[in-house]
């Protein structure tokens, strides 16, 4: 007869299976409906579109929760101590103190040890919240002047971008301002924080690949608008800012990565390799689609159904082979970041080619004489970029978690018969004990 915990495990496992199957395709509705709804603004969306968007978001959230649950299971399977012994204030402080630079790590341990002495619930929350604030914003020493100088430099750069880009290529003016402004804000935040003893780096491979990806996205956007100036209609201010957010975010992440993304030396190589394979695949499918009717079904199918499973499998294999969830997660995050930018750049570039060859839109294969509509590729790809990134990262996290857990289970299964054999040999024969 199974124990209550055993039954709960089985029920949870089956529940996850159902959730997994149900939600596998759900988030892709975001990729379709977000651009469609926002083409003329959300206010013009039909109730059905709103319903689909809500369903897509709910499914994305459920997938995220499932990924976190799997991650916790994998950590336990890999031998990590369960964190359930900690209450919420302790967890808050543990997470916040993990962000402290090396030079302040002792202070994080000191605050955690002190929290263990605080008894009442409200006092624990107060103490943990204060310590967490200190851990996230530790004393910065005498860098106030540096921060002010950096902020001034950022403001000047934004103003310069407004005039320079406005003069040279006016449609990209808002994008340039937002992009430089976000990088400047991140720089100001960085200089106000304590400097770690040894700053982690993403490595030359990720640095080059990431910078190339960001540059390709900007170049492809500028190229399309340069070819079809009327298409600038689709790079309206909101869309320009939405495009600047992931591009600036990725650029910042490759320049100043968190330590958690830099510990596995194979992760960058695997991520760049998989990204190149996916980019090449997308390019080939686009050309194949174009030469066989150009109805965009093949390219849409590729973007919707190939990268996510590819990232899942890559993260799964990386976590299983390296016997580390973290290795799998690093592969997943770098691949998702690089591949999503590559998909944007290729789609926007191919949109120009599709229209030049037979006046077809890459969005839906429609043949039109209005060149302005080519710009819809910028709009669609921009609004799809962040949801795509989220979906791919979640798939990668699930792959890493399942890969690590599977490997741990396999190791246990292999070691059990051996241990059983050893016990059997050590046990004395019945005649000896009876004597």
């Amino acid at each position, binding site marked *: 007869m199974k124990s209550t915990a055993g039954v709960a495990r089985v029920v949870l496992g089956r529940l996850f299976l159902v959730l997994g199957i149900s939600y596998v395709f759900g988030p892709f509705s975001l990729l379709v409906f977000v651009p469609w709804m926002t083409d003329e603004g959300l206010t013009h969306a039909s109730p059905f579109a709103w319903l689909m968007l809500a369903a897509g978001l709910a499914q994305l959230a459920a997938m995220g929760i499932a990924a976190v649950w799997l991650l916790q299971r994998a950590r336990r399977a890999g031998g990590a101590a369960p964190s359930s012994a900690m209450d919420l204030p302790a967890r808050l402080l543990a997470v916040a103190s993990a962000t402290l630079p090396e030079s302040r790590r*002792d*202070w994080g341990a000191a605050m955690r040890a002190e929290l263990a002495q605080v008894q009442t619930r409200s006092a624990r929350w107060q103490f*943990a919240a*204060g310590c967490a604030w*200190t851990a996230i914003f*530790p004393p910065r020493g005498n860098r106030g002047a540096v921060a002010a100088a950096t902020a001034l430099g950022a403001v000047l750069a934004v103003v310069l971008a407004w005039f320079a880009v406005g003069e040279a290529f006016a449609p990209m003016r808002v994008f340039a301002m937002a992009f430089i402004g976000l990088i400047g804000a991140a720089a100001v935040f960085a200089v106000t924080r304590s400097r770690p003893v040894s700053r982690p780096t993403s490595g030359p491979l990720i640095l080059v690949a990431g910078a190339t990806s960001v540059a390709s996205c900007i170049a492809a956007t500028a190229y399309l608008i340069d070819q079809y100036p009327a298409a600038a209609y689709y790079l309206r201010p909101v869309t320009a800012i939405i495009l600047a957010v992931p591009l600036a975010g990725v650029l910042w992440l490759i320049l100043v990565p968190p330590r958690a993304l830099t510990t596995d030396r194979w992760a960058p190589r695997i991520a760049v390799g998989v990204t190149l394979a996916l980019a090449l695949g997308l390019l080939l499918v686009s050309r194949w689609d174009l030469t066989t009717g150009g109805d965009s079904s093949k390219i849409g199918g590729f973007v919707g159904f190939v990268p996510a499973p590819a990232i899942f499998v890559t993260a799964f294999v990386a976590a299983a082979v390296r016997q580390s969830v973290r290795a799998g997660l690093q592969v997943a995050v770098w691949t998702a970041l690089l591949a999503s930018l590559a998909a944007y750049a290729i789609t926007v570039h191919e949109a120009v080619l599709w229209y030049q060859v037979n006046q077809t839109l890459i969005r839906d294969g429609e043949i039109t004489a209005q060149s302005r509509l080519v710009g819809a590729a910028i709009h669609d790809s921009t609004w799809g970029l962040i949801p795509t990134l989220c979906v791919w990262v979640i798939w990668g996290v699930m792959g890493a978690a399942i890969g690590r857990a599977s490997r741990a289970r396999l190791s246990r299964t292999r070691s059990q018969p051996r241990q059983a054999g050893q016990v059997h040999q050590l046990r004395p024969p019945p005649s000896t004990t009876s004597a």
Partner: protein
Amino acid sequence: MARARKLSDQTVAVVLAFADAPATWRYGYDLCQLVGLKAGSMYPILMRLADRGLLESTWEREVPSGRPPRHLYRLTGPGRALAAELATVAARQVRPAGARSNPRPGPSWGRAT
């Protein structure tokens, strides 16, 4: 000892709390309760004092089972000298009003550290 910048009221209060029993090692939470500061104010002050060499710290050696060792703090030599200086200034400022001999500082202590 170098006092390039004026100390905040809260920092002075912490230094003087240490100076009440200079040889005693103190804990972060106890200091919060003693001085009446929240952890979000206390720990940055302790960090700055330690950065300036005014505070020494160590980990608790004899730890009862079931809890982690605590971090302990007390003033260094320069820290005690600063505390004495602050106490003298405080006494000079408060004496005309006939207040305590070792008072907590008032708002006249200046700006933040």
